[in-house]
């Protein structure tokens, strides 16, 4: 560590960066400099250590449920591998999707007011009503492609304790791709942008029951309980 050549201005700049007062372009410049100037990076680290005593001012606040599940979904759902059995069967999926639409019609459980009315001009572009044949379970997933997020409205289904519901995109070919865990009380499910681009009108979605926190393997391990396809609102 060589800090002996740094001028007071560098000290002040490192301090400004750690305080956080700089505008975005200067924050980025400081970070670029930290990457190539280890002495300057040491100044920043030194300020971080000193100012960390002020962290006591941050009172812990319990975060909403579901955040960890979304973190896990983003980090660990990418390794989806081709699945065998029912998961690999396109016929099964198409059949289930068709059956779910029929069930939706028969039970009349999907009404527009289950979806929170979005502000005018920002209507979700695609909506899927997910159901299962012969039972009144279901949820509604509304995708806002601009935001890259689903808004999930649970209708009448929740997993047993110790289980999570995982939402999957079922492509025409290949293995289902995890989109993340269904928030237990509904809410937003934010997707990575590359995933959003894989989703289009008519795409088939499915929900499986998984161990708490989601499939440990990246492929669905539990029974499929809901499915449905996305269509324009």
């Amino acid at each position, binding site marked *: 560590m060589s800090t002996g050549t740094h001028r007071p201005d560098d*000290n002040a700049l490192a301090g*400004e960066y750690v305080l956080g007062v700089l*505008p975005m372009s200067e924050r980025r410049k400081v970070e670029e400099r930290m990457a190539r100037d280890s002495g300057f990076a040491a100044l920043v680290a030194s300020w971080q250590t000193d100012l960390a*005593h002020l*962290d006591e001012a941050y009172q812990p606040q*319990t975060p909403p449920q579901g955040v960890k599940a979304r973190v896990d979904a983003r980090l660990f759902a990418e390794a989806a591998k081709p699945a065998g059995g029912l998961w690999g069967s396109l016929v099964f999926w198409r059949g289930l999707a068709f059956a779910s639409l029929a069930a939706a019609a028969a039970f009349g459980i999907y009404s527009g007011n289950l979806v929170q009315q979005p502000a005018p001009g920002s209507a979700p572009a695609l909506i899927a009503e997910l159901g299962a044949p012969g039972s009144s379970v279901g949820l509604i997933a509304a995708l806002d492609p601009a935001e890259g997020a689903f808004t999930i409205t649970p209708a009448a289904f929740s997993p047993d304790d110790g289980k999570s519901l995982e939402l999957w995109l079922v492509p025409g070919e290949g293995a289902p791709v995890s989109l993340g865990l269904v928030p237990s009380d509904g809410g937003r499910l934010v997707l990575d942008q590359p995933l959003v681009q894989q989703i289009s009108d008519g795409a088939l979605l499915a929900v499986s029951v998984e161990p708490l926190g989601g499939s440990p393997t990246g492929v669905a391990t539990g029974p499929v309980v809901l499915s449905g396809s996305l269509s324009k609102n």
Partner: protein
Amino acid sequence: MSQDELSGLIARTALGDRVAFSSLYSQTSAKLFGVALRILKDRAQAEDALQEVYVRIWRRAGSFRVGQASAMAWLVTIARNQAIDLIRARQPATLEYDEAPEVADAAPDPEARAVLSGESRRIDTCLSELDADRATAVVAAYVEGLSYQELAEQHAVPLNTMRTWLRRSLIKLRECMSR
């Protein structure tokens, strides 16, 4: 949970241990959500920020070095950076102030002395040596994530004046802590 135990969880997270990562989340997410809320002042945004923070923690756990920073300070730094980046992204990317005003004469580099002396005094002792309003500005900037623009408005001074104040205060702080 002790800093040592937290350090252990971060180290195991760096090895891809999801159980350790889950423990780390349950032990630290309330503190980091508190950080995001305090800076962003909006629950939905703080929730999005918290999600991003733990994605970063997973990806950067390997860069944590025991002894360089306390485990919690390292985690809070990631949370603060994420929250501050989010609010700065909504503000002008540059500010119309003069190029970094000179803050001091060419005194011997205080940082070098800090390294030699081997220990720093606590920041709050040194803050108390500043004028009260300047100490307040430093603390508010750090804790609330205020921008220069916001600080200048709060203290009803021009932007350049605010920046000169703050940079001088920082140099004084550094000098004090390395005494």
